[in-house]
Every structure is written in structure tokens, then in C-alpha cells.
């Protein structure tokens, strides 16, 4: 992908706004880790948005963070105890002091009670907004899964199981190929995590003579939860294979590292 076009597309601005799908978010995340230019751009966008939003604030009170810490019980300070000497008083003073104290305690109690209830309500509201964020995440994930399901169920899609090879006999994958749209969906759930510095590379093969064509590397294999990847394929493939290659991929497949292979049935 052309980095400049990617940056110019405006996707990073929406990323900071929080208006992308889960899949797009992950894509941006991977791009940021791969390309410092992308990260730099995101940081600058974020800085501009922070500056603008902060400018709208009528500067919050400086004590709020103290309140927050207190609320969370972080580094509590000891309360000071002040001793008082007692002068002598008559019973009336005692009685009125006692009455005042009682009244005070009562008032204090009901104010406290009220505050506690209000606090509970506002806690519940904030809790609510957390759940909303989580729900939104779940909704997006579900939509993404439904999309994948729809894509691989299509009438024009053929399924090709890729079996584990040699030392990797226990691994497997599946390719769903939509010839009309020149697209394959690779379900690579049966492959282990790629080790540091290595990537899986997908190959389209024609047999007789055996000619591999790279369909690219799966750079986000480890971070992708669904392990389903869509890949462009305009080849007249007769088989598909997956090898483990050094980061960046290879020109030709390393056959000792051939994990899975499957032939497109011609019937």
C-alpha cells in the first residue's frame, strides 16, 4: 500500500475520532507499528484535537485530581487530632451543646445520605457509559463476523482445505475463493502464532510446471483475533500454500517451511 495515499485518505483523522470499524482500527494500529510516518501523523492529529478541545474548557479546578485520588483511596494522609482543654461550664451550656451536636449529627447524616445516593446515581451513569462503549465494540465485532460469514457462504465461493505438511502435519487452513471477485478468504486458525521476525506468506501455485506466485505476507497474523484474512487473487490458481518466511517475505517459497498445502479440485 502506498503510504502517502494511506495517510492522505483521512483514515487516521477518523481513527483519532474513534469512528472506524474494529478491523480498520487494527489495520491502523499495525501500520503505526510498521511505519513511523503513520505514527507521527497520528500523534500530530491527536495533538491538534487535544489543543482544540482543551481550548474550549473553562479550565477545570486544580483540586480535581486530589478529589479523584481521595475518592480512590490513593496515598491517604493522616488526619490530625487536635486536643482541647476543657473549661468549666454549667448544665445549660452542656445541654445546648448536646442539642446542637445532635442536630448537627442529624443534619450531617442526612446530607451524607443524600450525597451518597447522588454519588451512586452518577456512578451508575458512568458505569453505563462504559458498558455502552463495550457494547459498541461487541456490535462491531459481530458485524465483522457476519460479513465474513456472508462472504464465505456465497454461491460462487469454492472451499479449498489446506492440509498440514511434513513436520507441520498438525496444522491446517482453509481457503474460500471467490473467483468472480478475485478474492480469497483465508481461514488460518489452524496455524500457530508466527515467531518473532517471521511471517506467514501465502502462495498461489500452478502445477506442471510448478510455479509459485506470492499473494503476500500476513503481517497482522498474531494480532488478528479472527484469523481470517481477505487477500486479492487474480491468478488462475491450481493450489494454495502457506510458508513461514523471514519478515518482509521471500521471492520464492522456502519449502522446508511449507506448513499447509491444498489443491483446487477441478470437478
Amino acid at each position, binding site marked *: 500500500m502506498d503510504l502517502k495515499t494511506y495517510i*492522505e*485518505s*483521512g*483514515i487516521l*483523522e*477518523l*481513527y*483519532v*475520532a*474513534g*469512528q*472506524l470499524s*474494529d478491523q480498520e*482500527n*487494527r489495520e491502523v*494500529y499495525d501500520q503505526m507499528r510498521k511505519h513511523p510516518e503513520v*505514527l507521527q501523523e*497520528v500523534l*500530530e*492529529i*491527536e*495533538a*491538534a*484535537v*487535544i*489543543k*482544540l*478541545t*482543551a*481550548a*474550549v*474548557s*473553562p*479550565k*477545570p*479546578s486544580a483540586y*480535581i*485530581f486530589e*478529589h*479523584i*485520588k481521595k*475518592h*480512590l483511596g*490513593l*496515598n491517604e494522609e493522616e488526619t490530625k487530632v487536635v486536643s482541647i482543654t476543657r473549661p468549666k461550664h454549667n448544665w445549660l451550656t452542656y445541654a445546648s451543646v448536646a442539642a446542637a451536636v445532635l442536630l448537627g449529627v442529624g443534619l450531617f447524616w442526612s446530607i451524607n445520605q443524600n450525597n451518597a445516593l*447522588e454519588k451512586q*446515581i*452518577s*456512578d451508575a*451513569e*458512568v*458505569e*453505563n*457509559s*462504559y458498558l*455502552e*462503549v*463495550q457494547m459498541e*465494540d461487541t456490535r462491531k465485532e459481530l458485524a465483522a463476523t457476519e460479513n465474513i460469514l456472508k462472504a464465505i457462504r456465497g454461491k460462487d465461493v469454492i472451499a479449498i482445505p489446506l492440509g498440514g505438511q511434513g513436520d507441520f502435519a498438525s496444522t491446517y487452513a482453509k481457503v474460500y475463493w471467490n473467483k468472480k471477485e478475485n478474492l480469497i478468504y483465508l481461514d488460518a486458525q489452524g496455524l500457530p502464532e508466527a515467531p518473532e521476525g517471521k511471517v506467514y506468506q501465502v502462495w498461489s501455485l500452478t502445477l506442471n510446471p510448478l510455479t509459485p506466485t506470492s499473494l503476500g505476507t500476513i503481517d497482522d497474523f498474531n*494480532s488478528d483475533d479472527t484469523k481470517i484474512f481477505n487477500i486479492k487473487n487474480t491468478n488462475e490458481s491450481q493450489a494454495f500454500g502457506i510458508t513461514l518466511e523471514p519478515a518482509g517475505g521471500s521471492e520464492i517459497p522456502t519449502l522446508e517451511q511449507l506448513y499447509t498445502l491444498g489443491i483446487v479440485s477441478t470437478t
Partner: protein
Amino acid sequence: MQLDTLVLNFQNKDEKAFEELYNMYSESMHGVIYNIVRDNDIAEEVMQDIFVKAWQKSNSYDASKGRFFTWILNIARNAAIDKVRSKDFKNAKKNLNSDFFVDILETSESLNDQTDAIGIKKYVDILQEKCKKIIEFLYFKGYTQKETSEELDIPLGTIKTRNRNCINELRKMLVE
């Protein structure tokens, strides 16, 4: 990446990291919340709540799903909107006018005394009208692309690039 470490430390309950993140984002969050609730006391209260909850729920943040700023921005917007919808808010208030963030910048008494903010006001004034709105909807209000396109009556496909141009304008102003 320093910010990453900071966020990680925060998730590991490091109070210093918490304070640093608070210093980085609190004013911004306060601005976003204030723009929605339009009351300084309530905005402070909501902001305090979201940072308390952020600390308690720090583990629910996942860096691969978005920026930390975006995470907390999302929560701030939701909490502020919930507050506006809540009963005690309605009782105490006021029908909210549909003012935009730019209107806040224009009323000078609500501006904080930082020269920064005054500088921004000057520049935001010359932002295109469409830009003011697009930024309001996408960042301050958290509208989706679709909602923004409907609200502004511009095609969904052009939101991305148009917003990019607007943010570019803003960035240019900020570095000048």
C-alpha cells in the same frame, strides 16, 4: 514509544503515570464535556467521575483497538450525554441550546486565560463553516460518519477527505 509505556504503567496501577495522563488529557476532556453539558460544575463532576472509572477499569483499554486518548474521549462523551439525559440534570436545567464549540470560544469570559486558547480562538474563527461543524460532530459529539453526513447533507464518501482537510487547516494554524 513513551506514551505506550505511560499507559501500560497506568494499567499496572502506577499513580504517577495516572497523574501524568490526567495532566495530559483532563483539560481536553473537560472541554468536550463542557461543550455538551454547558455547566462548569457539572462538567467538573463528570470529568472527575470518568477519571475515577478510568483508573478502576484501566484493564478494559486495549491498545490494538485505538488510541488511549480516543478511549477516554469516547467515555467522556458518553458520560456527558448520559448526564444531559438524566433526570436531575433536566430538573436543574435549562433547555440546552444547540450551540457549537466555536460559540464557546467566541464568548470570551468562558475562555481560559492561556494565550494558547486565545490564539486558537483567533484561528478557529477563520475555519470554514463546514469545518467547524464537521469537527464538532466527529470529535466533540462523537457522531458516526453516517450521522455526520446526514446532518451536514454531504455524501458519506466525502466525509473522510473533507475532515482530513479541516484537521489539516487546524494543524496549520496551530504550528504558525
